[in-house]
């Protein structure tokens, strides 16, 4: 499937949900925000939120420290 992830067009193995996408990239679900096609995806539905080919996804990890 074709996705745009963090601004980069990418070919992915077929995945079903935002949770699968995070697992694919090895991103922990805590302290991460996901924006799918311009809408924020609530963390408690990462496992249910469907991803489709052509989607634009932003994965934003909180950066602490200062």
């Amino acid at each position, binding site marked *: 499937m074709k996705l745009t992830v963090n601004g980069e067009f990418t070919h992915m193995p077929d995945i079903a949900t935002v949770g699968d996408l995070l697992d694919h990239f090895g991103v922990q679900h805590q302290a991460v925000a996901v924006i799918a096609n311009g809408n924020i995806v609530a963390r408690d539905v990462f496992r249910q939120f469907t991803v489709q080919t052509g989607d634009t996804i932003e994965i934003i990890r909180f*950066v602490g420290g200062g």
Partner: protein
Amino acid sequence: MSDPSTHLPVITDKERVRRLLALPGTRPNRLARLHTARVAIVGMGGLGNASAQYLAAQGIGHLTLIDGDRVDATNLGRQVLFGPSDIGTLKIEAAFKALSRIAPKLEVDTIADYFTEHNGASLIASHDIIIDGLDSAAARHWINRAALNKGVPVIFAGAVGYEAQVFAVYGKPPCLSCLWPTMTDADGDCVTHGILGPLVGMVGSLQAAEAIKHLIGFADKPGSLWTFDLFQGRTRVVSVPPNPLCPVCGSVSRGPSS
């Protein structure tokens, strides 16, 4: 030998803002606002150091510096207002000394305390904008909530390792909690993960730039989030939408209940 300070040329407020006049998006009648602006910097670490020096140099009238920490030798690689002779002194006092050299007419309040859920609202009261220089995810959420309640803008930032981000919240949605409603396991500290010194200077300077743009009337762009990854060599600006389910500002965006 005479005191060299008696021979210093007088720098007026107009001279500090003269190079802003030609900038697109600047309203000349708003430049005077810098002189009367009150900016609170919460945390005088790497981010606070960098933002403070540019805010002072550009002619901000008042800075409130809030931090209970003392200068440590390991701070000197990135906290550029401090020198070896400052080790062991309160960061706010060492910063005040350095900022007074940069801008002698700058008015500074120093508060030797840490921002908490309980004192936060009173610490940021009567300020036009807040600079987040904290190293605690929980405290960032306290600032977010307190500032939204008062409608005060906050320029958030974080930096650890090679990564940094800046997120401006203008007293209305979207806010920090729209993206990260809970912060479990969010803290990454510079002791464990390291920190590239100039990185905090870079994003602290961006915080100052966004604060100054807001104060001089440049149109805000709510939801702009800058991300920097100097390991991969990537920089992006992401547009963050308001989150209707946000536990902090979601109710604000829904308006009064009927």
